[in-house]
């Protein structure tokens, strides 16, 4: 009764999916011809695009980025705009779908004629936007830490690349005298790439990797893998798990008797926003970022006060939010350094442009379009804030391809 029609249904579904993906490929019209910019700089305002997911699975994270971009735009406008022009921002929803990101950035660049786009979160969304922004010779500011190994003339990366987050985390572990390390990650590009770097650097530092486990992003049951951590008794666990899978991991970790006293966790995707949502008290665990709400600087005091005045005193500030806020100010400084909104003029004079950001002074590297950032390690306290326990002391120059690290072999397994 069931099997023949089921096959029929599967056929229909496959055909439908194929049609949909074909039509998704077919709507790229801008490329090839490109170049000729339609940005209008004659008026007394300048259009910028904010492209974040305000619906779908990533909305909760990306909305925080949208909020801090809005704050930065309002501040800049109150202060006289960019080159005297008021920012007029066009908001679009990426809908947590890379294909939508590609479509929307095309619309922003070619029909809204914005001078620059700010947004994206997942690596998949950035990879989807990259060919479009390059074909149109547009500008994208991407505010999230990522797996590196990329440098586009048309993208500025204001989140950390691996040598500003993963490598400092390893330096911290070495300084703590860690000898054995267990790697736990979600099964997709960021954790796989990060762990490849971690393994090679660990060999250099003399840290032994005693286990490496991945669980698919949509699977939250970590019980079996945590049992392996219990067996391996590592000095530290390096956590590259993303999203809701963290909850399952943290629960299984405490359930099986692990604790910060036995095998503490260092995470790269748990920040002020996520720590209280774990369903467990995670006091004493660590995270590696380039900004914490607890950073002591006059610029950060101003940022936190302005953000909480605008959006509510209960709202925490986090690394991606700060990187997004910083990206808009960097854009302002880039335009003013070039005295032009033209992409080529901006790129020409980009090297060395800096901003006194909440995380500290950040400076653009004109070659790879990343920014120098200070590596920080925070330890979660009872208020779900981070006590900063380690810092790289000075900003680390971005090196997305790890060319300055002679232990790095991209071809090795």
């Amino acid at each position, binding site marked *: 009764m069931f099997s023949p029609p089921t096959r029929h249904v599967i056929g229909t579904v496959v055909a439908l999916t194929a049609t949909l993906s074909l039509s998704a490929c077919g709507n790229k019209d801008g490329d090839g011809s490109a170049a000729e910019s339609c940005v209008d700089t004659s008026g007394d305002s300048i259009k910028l695009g904010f492209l974040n997911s305000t619906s779908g699975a990533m909305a909760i994270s990306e909305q925080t980025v949208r909020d801090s971009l809005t704050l930065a735009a309002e501040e800049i406008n109150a202060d006289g705009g960019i080159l005297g022009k008021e920012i007029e921002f066009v908001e679009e929803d990426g809908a947590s779908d890379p294909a939508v990101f590609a479509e929307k950035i095309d619309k922003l660049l070619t029909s809204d004629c914005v001078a620059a786009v700010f947004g994206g979160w997942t690596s998949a969304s950035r990879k989807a936007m990259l060919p479009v922004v390059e074909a149109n010779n547009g500008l994208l500011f991407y505010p999230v830490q990522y797996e590196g190994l990329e440098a586009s003339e048309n993208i500025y990366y204001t989140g950390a690349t691996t040598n500003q987050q993963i490598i400092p985390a390893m330096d911290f572990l070495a300084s703590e005298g860690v000898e054995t390390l267990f790697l736990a990650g979600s099964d997709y590009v960021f954790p796989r790439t990060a762990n490849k770097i971690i393994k090679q650097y660990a060999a250099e530092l003399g840290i032994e990797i005693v286990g490496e486990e*991945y669980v698919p992003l949509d699977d939250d049951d970590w019980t079996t893998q945590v049992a392996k951590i219990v067996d391996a008794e590592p000095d530290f666990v390096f956590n590259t798990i993303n999203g809701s899978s963290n909850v399952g991991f943290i629960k299984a970790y405490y359930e099986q*008797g692990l604790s910060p006293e036995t095998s503490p966790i260092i995470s790269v995707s748990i920040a002020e926003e996520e720590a209280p*949502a774990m369903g467990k008290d995670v006091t004493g665990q660590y995270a590696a970022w380039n900004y914490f709400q607890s950073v002591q600087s006059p610029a950060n005091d101003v940022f936190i006060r302005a953000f909480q005045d605008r959006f509510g005193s209960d709202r925490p500030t986090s690394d991606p939010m700060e990187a997004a806020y910083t990206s808009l100010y960097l854009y302002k400084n880039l335009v003013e350094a070039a005295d032009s909104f033209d992409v080529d003029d901006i790129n020409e004079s980009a090297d060395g442009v800096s901003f006194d950001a909440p995380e500290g002074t950040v400076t653009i590297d004109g070659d790879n379009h990343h920014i120098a950032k200070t590596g920080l390690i925070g330890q979660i306290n009872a208020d779900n804030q981070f006590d900063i326990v380690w810092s790289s002391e000075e900003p680390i120059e971005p090196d997305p391809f790890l060319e300055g690290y002679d232990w790095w072999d991209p071809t090795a397994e």
Partner: protein
Amino acid sequence: MDSFTTPLLAGTATGALLLIAALGLALTFGQMGVINMAHGEFLMAGAYTAFVTQQIVTNADISIVVALPAAFVVAGLLGLLLEVTVITWMYRRPLDTLLVTVGVGLVLQQLAKDIFGAQGDPVRTPTWLDGNIDVFGYHWPYRQMFTIVLAVMALIALAALLKYSAFGRQIRATVQNRDLAETVGIRTRAVDRITFFIGSGLAGIGGVAVSLISGTNPRLGTTYIISAFLVVVAGGLGQLKGTVIAAFAVGIATSFFADWTSASMAQVATFALVVVFLQLRPQGLFVVRSRGLA
């Protein structure tokens, strides 16, 4: 030693969870022949019920006890609503049911996102389930034992209902020969609805157990629905014995594969195993010969 007890015990708990999800399907799919792809979303509804209960009854030790019957009723009512509004029109069209219930599942997921937000919500573990016991080096969490107890209790209750109660006999009569059942005065439509209510309610109980693993999130049901269908099909339609064996076999096999390889590979390997098994034995583990289903 450890590489044996750990996957065995963890796999038994995974199997128990699958069993709770599959027991409901064994009723609605195995007995009634309805392919309900929204069954996973009833699991999700159960998990959110656990979360909401915890907001009202803030003591986690007590709220879980309240959440279990509440989740049964919430998921059951959702199932009843689905049966009365949609499935009732499609009893002779299993394929349409499949497509429609996929749609219903997506609607329920979006509803959960709109009400509770796209990010998951944590569900606190009661203190009496927080801890573990050392079994040959495996720190076996109380929570996993609780899942197994829950599955066994659900199984016994369902089996007893089907076997010994008057209503259970009505269900079996309706499934085996609807026309004959009607001639002896059984109101088969009412039986259909109550059967669907119970089957969906069981998913709600499974949802409470899942919420203890990972909290809630709108996609939670999609993780379990395919495996649950596999279990029911591999066990053989129309009886519970096969479902029980298949659930624990799939759970334990996945756990061993995960121990030997990785979690991603384990899913692939288990699916492959079930597919091969169904090639060799398309009717599943056990066959009921006299029943209404083809």
